[in-house]
C-alpha cells in the first residue's frame, strides 16, 4: 500500500487543511494543495480509468498532465487530468470509460477475448456485410469508445472570460532555464511575462536534484524584479502568426502579443515499450519524483527501476530515501558508462542488471512483477530472463524535448542520432529555446543557456544588446559534451501487448501491421492507426512512433519525419475559447418605445426590428385608409460629396445618375460583376455636389465594403463616402392622411406641386432638422423622414401624437411586406437569389445597357442577347384564403404518376387584406410569365394548387395614390 510520508521540505501540500471529496462513489480525504491524483495515490488508489479500446485498467503514468491515463470526470466536466487538477472540497470525481464500474468492467474481459481480432484498423474490416450489420454494429462501437460524458443537456454558463496581455519577452516555462531567461531579459529592461503550467515556479528544480541549492535565490530574484509578471497554472496552448500566443488558466483565456518568445518548457519523459507497459504501477521515473517531492506520497513499496541514464539512479535514490525498497535496477548501459558515487552506493545493496532492459510487466489490475532481460548489440532480447516481484516499475530511459510551440513558430527539427533526441534548426529571429526543451540537461548549462536566450530575445524585442555569437558557441559546445540521456532504442522483441499509444491502445505490433498493409508514411500511419490523435496529441507516442516507423521502413528518423504539431498543445475548453458572449445587438433610437408598446421583435442581421405591434392586417388597413408610421432607421445611409459623385454612382448602379437634378430622388439597383442583383435603394441629390444614398437594411454593410473597394481601386477620386447609418434615425409616414399629419408639424410647403413625388426636401419637422424623401414603397402617399439619431424617438412620438386624430398606427415589418407585395415591389435577397439578374427580376426598366461601363454590364449584355429563361412575376391564387408558404415550388405536372417537374418557385406570398385575395411574387419560365392570366401549379402538400400570373401591381397599378 502506498502511503503519505511525513512532512518534507519542498512539499506543496498544506497538512493543516483537509478536504473531503468523492471518487467512484467513495469518500476520500486530501490535503489542500493535493491534486486528485496525489490524493488518491496517497490512499493507495491505483486504477483511475479504463482505456479507450480494450478497457484495460489505467493508472498514473506521467503525473505531469501529458498522458491520457488519469483522465477522469469531475462533475459535468469530462476528461480532466487528475494529476493537474487540484482537489476542491466536495468534488465529485468519476472514472471514465467504465462499463459499468471501474472495478467490474464486463467489457474488459470481452475485449481481451476479442483482441486477437481487433488489430489495428479492425473496424475497417468488419461489420459491413451485409450492409444492415453496420446498423446494429455502429451503436455498439460508439458505446464502447469515447471517454468522458456530456450527460446533462443544458447547464448554465460558468463565467469564462478573456484577457489581453503583452510583453517584450514571453517566457514559457519557469524551470531553471526559464527563470534564468526571465531574469536576464528583465535585466536588459524588457517587460517579461513568465508562464508556467505548474502551481509553483521552479520546474524540475522542485522534483529533481538538490532542490535547495538554486531555487530559493532564483525565486527571490524573480519576485524582486519590477518588470516581471508571473502566471502560474497557466498553460500556453498555441503560437500563432506574429507571435500571438494563447494561454489558459482555469476559466480564463489569455491572448498574448509577444515581442519575442523563450521556450523553456522542459522535456517529456519517454515511455518504454514492453509487454503490459500500461499496467497501473508502471510509471515514468519523473512521475514518481513528482509524487514523492511535491505531494509526499510514496508511489509503492517495492520498486524495479529501469533506466538508460543517471536520472534513473537519482529516482532510485529518492525512492530509498522515502522508504521504498528498490528491489532491482536495470540499466541499458554498460557498467563503465556510469560511475557516480550514487551508482556505487546503490550497487552495493541493490541487484543491478547492466546492459539489461525490461521485457514485461506482470499483474492483473496492477503490476506485481517485472521480467528483466539482457540486451544484445542491436537491442534484441536473449535468455536468460529474470523475474522480479515488485509493485512499482519505474522507467527513466530518455527525454523528448517539449517543443510543440517551436514547431508552430516555424522552427524545424532534425534528429541527432548520437544523442537520440531532436535538435532545433532554423530558428526564427524572435524565438529561442533553452534548457531541457533544447536538450540541455545539466543545471549550470541550463542556467547559462537560459540567460543567453533571455538576453537575445530582449534584444530581438528592442531591449539591450544581443550576446556575442561566441557565447552561444560556448554553450552549444558544453551541451554537446553532456552525456546522452536517451536510449537509442525504444523496445525489445517479445510477445504480448506493448503499448505505443496509450490514448488509443495502439501497440507496437499494430504499427508494424499498418506499415505492412501500405500505411507506411508517418502521416498515413497516423490516420490509419490513430497514433498521436488522442488526448495526449502524441506527447507520449510521437517520438517512439517515428522510431518504429523508421525501423519498419529501414529508413532514418530524419527521412521518416514527424506529424505536424497543431494547436492546441494542451486541449482547451470551448468555454475558455468562447469567453463571454460578445455578440453585438443593434437597436434603433426608437427601440425602447417599440418594447414599451409590446411589439413582437424579430432578428434582422444584427438588428432587432418590430415585426408587428398587433394584427398586421389592421396595420395594413391603417396605411391604406388613414396613415401609418414605420421605423426604418435600419436602412443603410450614406453621404457622398465631391464633384465626381455621379461617376462612382454610374459605375455602381445599373441606372443613370448624371442628369439627376438637385432636389430629386431616384430608385437604383446594383449588381455584382456577374450581373446578379445585390442591393437597391433610393438616392437623393441634395446639393450640386452632395448626395444622400440609402441601401437596404441587410445590405448596408456589404454595400459600404463594395463601394469602398471600387473607390479605392481608382473610381472614387474626389469622392467622400461617409457612413451615416448610425447617425440618422428614419421613419416612413405613409397613407392618404400623411400630408395632413405632417403639415401639422412643419412649415415646409407639402403641396403636391411644391413637394412632388420622388423629390427631397430639408427642413424642421416637430422642431427637429429633417431630410424628407417623398417615396412610396408601400404604394401610398408617403414621406421618409431622416433626422439625427438623438431626435429619433422625439420625432416618432410627435408623429404619433399628431396622428392620433387621423387614427394613426405604427406598423411593423410584416405589414410592410404585405403593403409592398400589393404594389409588386420586390425585396432583394427574398425575391432574388444568387442567380437573379435585374432583367429577369422585372428591373429591366432600370438597366441602362447603353451607358458607360458599369458593374455587371458585360454580363447583362450577354443576358440580353441570350434572353432570360425565368422571370420574376406577380401572381394571385384565386379561391383560397391561406397563402401558400414562401419557398414552395412551381411544377409542371408529370403524366402517369411521374414526378412533377420543377419549373419555378414562390418567393413571396401573403393574403392581401386590401384585396381579400392571396397574392405573391414567383419565378416562372419566361414563356408562362409573359402571359397575363396564364395558369400554373404551385406544389403544396403533395398536391397542385392553381395560381394565375398577374402583371403589374394588384393595388393601384397606375400609381395614382403615391403621386397624389
Amino acid at each position, binding site marked *: 500500500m502506498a502511503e503519505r510520508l511525513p512532512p518534507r521540505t519542498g512539499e506543496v501540500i498544506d497538512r493543516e487543511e483537509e478536504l473531503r471529496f468523492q471518487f467512484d462513489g467513495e469518500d476520500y480525504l486530501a490535503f489542500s494543495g493535493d491534486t486528485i491524483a496525489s490524493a488518491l495515490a496517497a490512499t493507495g488508489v491505483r486504477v483511475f480509468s479504463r482505456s479507450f479500446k480494450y478497457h484495460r485498467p489505467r493508472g498514473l503514468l506521467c503525473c505531469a498532465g501529458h498522458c491520457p491515463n488519469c483522465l477522469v470526470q469531475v462533475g459535468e466536466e469530462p476528461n480532466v487530468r487528475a494529476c493537474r487538477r487540484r482537489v476542491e472540497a466536495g468534488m465529485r470525481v468519476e472514472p471514465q470509460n467504465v462499463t459499468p464500474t471501474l472495478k467490474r468492467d464486463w467489457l474488459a474481459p470481452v475485449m481481451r477475448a476479442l483482441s486477437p481480432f*481487433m488489430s489495428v484498423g479492425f473496424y475497417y474490416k468488419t461489420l459491413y456485410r451485409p450492409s444492415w450489420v453496420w446498423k446494429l454494429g455502429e451503436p455498439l462501437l460508439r458505446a464502447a469508445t469515447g471517454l468522458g*460524458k456530456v450527460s446533462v443537456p443544458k447547464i448554465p454558463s460558468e463565467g469564462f472570460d478573456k484577457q489581453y496581455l503583452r510583453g517584450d519577452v514571453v517566457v514559457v516555462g519557469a524551470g531553471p532555464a526559464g527563470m534564468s531567461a526571465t531574469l536576464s531579459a528583465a535585466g536588459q529592461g524588457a517587460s517579461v511575462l513568465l508562464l508556467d503550467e505548474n502551481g509553483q515556479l521552479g520546474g524540475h528544480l522542485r522534483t529533481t536534484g538538490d532542490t535547495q541549492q538554486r531555487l530559493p535565490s532564483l525565486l527571490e530574484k524573480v519576485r524582486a524584479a519590477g518588470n516581471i509578471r508571473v502566471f502560474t497554472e497557466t498553460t500556453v496552448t498555441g503560437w500563432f502568426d506574429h507571435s500571438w500566443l494563447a494561454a489558459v488558466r482555469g476559466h480564463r483565456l489569455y491572448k498574448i502579443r509577444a515581442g519575442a518568445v523563450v521556450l523553456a518548457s522542459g522535456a517529456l519523459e519517454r515511455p518504454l515499450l514492453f509487454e503490459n507497459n500500461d499496467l497501473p504501477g508502471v510509471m515514468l521515473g519523473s512521475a514518481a519524483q513528482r509524487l514523492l517531492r511535491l505531494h509526499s506520497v510514496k508511489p509503492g513499496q517495492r520498486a524495479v527501476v529501469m533506466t538508460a541514464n543517471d536520472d534513473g539512479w537519482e529516482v532510485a535514490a529518492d525512492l530509498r530515501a522515502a522508504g521504498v525498497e528498490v528491489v532491482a535496477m536495470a540499466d541499458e548501459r554498460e557498467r563503465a558508462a556510469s560511475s557516480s558515487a550514487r551508482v556505487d552506493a546503490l550497487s552495493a545493496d541493490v541487484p543491478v542488471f547492466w546492459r539489461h532492459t525490461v521485457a514485461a510487466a506482470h499483474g492483473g489490475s496492477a503490476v506485481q512483477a517485472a521480467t528483466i532481460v539482457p540486451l544484445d548489440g542491436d537491442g534484441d532480447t536473449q535468455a536468460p530472463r529474470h523475474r522480479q516481484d515488485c509493485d512499482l516499475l519505474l522507467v527513466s530511459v530518455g527525454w523528448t524535448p517539449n517543443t510543440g510551440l517551436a514547431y508552430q513558430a516555424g522552427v524545424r527539427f532534425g534528429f541527432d542520432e548520437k544523442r537520440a533526441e531532436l535538435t532545433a534548426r532554423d530558428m526564427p529571429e524572435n524565438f529561442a529555446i533553452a534548457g531541457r526543451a533544447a536538450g540541455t540537461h545539466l543545471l549550470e548549462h541550463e542556467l547559462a543557456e537560459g540567460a543567453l536566450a533571455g538576453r537575445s530575445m530582449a534584444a530581438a524585442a528592442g531591449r539591450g544588446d544581443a550576446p556575442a555569437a561566441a557565447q552561444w558557441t560556448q554553450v552549444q559546445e558544453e551541451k554537446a559534451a553532456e552525456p546522452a540521456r536517451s536510449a537509442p532504442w525504444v523496445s525489445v522483441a517479445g510477445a504480448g501487448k506493448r503499448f505505443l499509444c496509450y490514448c488509443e491502445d495502439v501497440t507496437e505490433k499494430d504499427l508494424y501491421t499498418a506499415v505492412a498493409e501500405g500505411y507506411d508514411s508517418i502521416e498515413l500511419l497516423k490516420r490509419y492507426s490513430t497514433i498521436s490523435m488522442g488526448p495526449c496529441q502524441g506527447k507520449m507516442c510521437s517520438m517512439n512512433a517515428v522510431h518504429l516507423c523508421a525501423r519498419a521502413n529501414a529508413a532514418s528518423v530524419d527521412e521518416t519525419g514527424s506529424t505536424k504539431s497543431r494547436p492546441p498543445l494542451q486541449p482547451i475548453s470551448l468555454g475558455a*475559447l468562447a469567453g463571454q458572449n460578445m455578440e453585438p445587438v443593434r437597436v434603433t433610437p426608437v427601440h425602447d418605445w417599440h418594447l414599451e408598446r409590446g411589439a413582437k421583435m424579430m432578428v434582422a442581421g444584427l438588428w432587432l426590428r418590430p415585426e408587428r405591434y398587433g394584427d398586421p392586417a389592421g396595420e395594413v388597413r391603417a396605411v391604406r385608409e388613414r396613415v401609418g408610421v414605420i421605423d426604418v432607421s435600419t436602412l443603410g445611409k450614406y453621404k457622398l460629396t465631391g464633384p465626381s459623385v455621379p461617376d462612382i454612382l454610374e459605375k455602381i448602379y445599373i441606372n443613370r445618375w448624371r442628369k439627376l437634378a438637385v432636389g430629386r430622388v431616384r430608385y437604383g439597383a446594383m449588381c455584382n460583376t456577374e450581373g446578379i442583383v445585390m442591393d437597391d435603394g433610393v438616392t437623393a441629390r441634395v446639393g450640386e455636389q452632395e448626395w444622400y444614398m440609402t441601401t437596404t437594411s441587410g445590405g448596408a454593410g456589404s454595400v459600404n465594403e463594395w463601394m469602398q473597394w471600387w473607390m479605392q481601386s481608382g473610381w472614387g477620386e474626389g469622392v467622400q463616402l461617409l457612413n451615416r447609418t448610425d447617425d440618422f434615425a428614419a421613419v416612413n409616414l405613409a397613407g392618404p392622411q400623411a400630408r395632413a399629419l405632417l403639415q401639422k408639424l412643419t412649415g415646409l410647403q407639402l403641396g403636391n406641386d411644391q413637394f412632388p413625388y420622388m423629390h427631397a426636401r430639408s427642413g424642421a419637422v416637430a422642431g427637429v432638422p429633417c431630410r424628407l424623401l417623398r417615396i412610396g414603397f408601400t404604394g401610398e402617399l408617403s414621406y421618409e423622414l431622416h433626422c439625427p439619431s438623438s431626435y429619433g424617438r422625439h420625432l416618432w412620438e410627435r408623429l404619433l401624437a399628431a396622428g392620433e386624430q387621423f387614427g394613426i398606427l405604427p406598423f411593423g415589418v410584416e405589414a410592410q411586406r404585405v403593403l409592398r407585395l400589393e404594389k409588386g415591389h420586390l425585396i432583394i435577397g427574398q425575391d432574388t437569389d444568387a442567380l437573379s439578374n435585374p432583367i429577369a427580376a422585372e428591373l429591366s426598366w432600370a438597366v441602362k445597357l447603353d451607358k458607360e461601363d458599369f458593374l455587371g454590364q458585360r454580363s447583362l449584355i450577354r443576358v440580353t442577347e441570350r434572353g432570360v429563361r425565368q422571370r420574376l412575376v406577380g401572381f394571385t391564387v384565386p379561391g383560397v384564403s391561406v397563402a401558400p408558404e414562401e419557398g414552395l415550388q412551381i411544377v409542371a405536372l408529370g403524366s402517369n404518376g411521374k414526378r412533377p417537374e420543377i419549373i419555378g418557385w414562390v418567393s413571396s406570398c401573403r393574403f392581401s387584406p386590401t384585396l381579400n385575395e392571396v397574392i405573391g411574387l414567383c419565378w416562372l419560365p419566361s414563356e408562362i410569365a409573359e402571359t397575363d392570366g396564364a395558369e400554373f401549379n404551385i406544389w403544396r402538400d403533395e398536391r397542385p394548387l392553381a395560381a394565375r400570373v398577374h402583371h403589374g401591381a394588384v393595388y393601384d397599378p397606375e400609381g395614382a395614390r403615391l403621386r397624389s
Partner: protein
Amino acid sequence: MSMKLVRQALRGERPPPRMWRAHELRERYDAVIIGGGAHGLCCAYYLAEEHGITDVAVLEKRYIGAGGSGRNTAIVRSNYLTPEGVRFYDASLKLYERMAGELDINVMLSQRGHLTLAHNDGSLRTMRRRAEVNRLQGVESRVIFPEEIERLCPHLDVSDHPRYPILGALYHPRGGIMRHDAVVWGYAHQADARGVHIHQLTEVTGIAVEGWRVTGVETNRGNIKTGTVLNATAGWCSTTAAMAGVKLPVTTSPLQACVSEPLKPFLDVVIVSGSLHVYVSQSDRGELVMGASVDPFPSYSSRGSLSFAESLAGHIVELMPALQHVRLMRQWAGLCDMTPDYSPIMGFTPVEGFYVDVGWGTYGFKASPISGKMLAECIATQRTPDLIAPFRLSRFSEFDLVGEKGAASVAN
C-alpha cells in the same frame, strides 16, 4: 466476425496483404490523374472497373488523401437548393450507401440525420425552398420546429434566450458522416487491384501541351507521355490548370476545422448553423468534429488560427451550453477552391485531352464517388454525362451558372 479479421488473427507473424503497391514510374500511361485524393482515386477505379482503362497513373505529391479528402469534416448529404445540385449529390449519396460492400472496406457511413438550423425568417424561407426541391427530387427533407429539434438533439438551446434563437431547421434524415480516409483507402485499394499505378511523393511540375492537345506530364520523378490528363487537385487546381494553359475562375481560401477530445456518444445528428457559421457532429470515436466558414481571404496556408477557434467555440457554446467544458483537441485547415457560383467545374477544357474535376469549395467530399464515376465516363466516352453538364467549365462564359450559393456557402 469478418473472415478478414479471423485470417489476420491466425496469420501470426506473416505480413498482411498490402492495400496498394509502389511502382516504378512508367514512360507512358493511357491516362494520368493528378491528385491522389478521393476524387482522383475514384476516377481511376471507375476507369478500370467500368471502362476497362487500367493503364492509369495517379500522381500524388504527398501521400494519398493528404489534401481535402483528409481535411474535411466528412459530412454527407444531398439536400441542396437547385434541382441539378440535388440530383447530382443524391446520386453521390446513393453510391456512398453501397460503397462499403463495393470497395470491401467499412467506410463507416453513419446516416444519423442532418439538421440545418434557421435563426431568422430569411433562412427559414430558404430551408422551406430546399425541402420542397428535395422532396420533388425524391430526397427526404423537411422543415421542423423547435420542439422536434429538441427531441433530435436535446443539447441544443431552443429557448429564446440566445442572441440568435433557433426558429426552425431543415431536417435531412439520410444526411450524416463517415470515415473520410477510408474512402480514399478503399478507392486506392480497388484501383490498385485493377492495375492502376498509385505514385505517392510524385509532384507534377509541368503539363506538356502541343497545339491545344495534351501530350504529357512532367514530374519530380521523370516525364510521362500521355494523351489524357485529369486535374483532380484541390487547393492547387488553378495553378495545375495553368500548367496546361487553362484559366479557371477559382480563388483559393483556407477552411478551418477542429476536433474535441473523445466523449461518450450523446450527439446523433449533424448540426449546421448558417447564421452562426458552424457545424458539429460526433464521430464514431466520440470526438466532436467542428468547422466554420471559409476564411474571409484567399490564402494557401493550412495553419489554424486562434480567432477561428474562439469564434467557433463561442457559437458552439451558444448553441449547446453543455459543451462549455468539452476540450478542443486539435485544429487544422484545408484549402477550398471557390468558384463564383459555389458549384464545381467538371469535364472538358479548351485543351484536348485535359479534363478538370475542380472548384470543389467546401462540398468536394460529398461528391467524391459520383464525380469520379462521371469523369471516368466523360474520359472513356468522350461525351459529357447529363448529370454533370450543368457544371461544365464553359458555363461561366455562357452566363449559365448554377445557383448553389444559398445551400453551399455555409461550408456544410
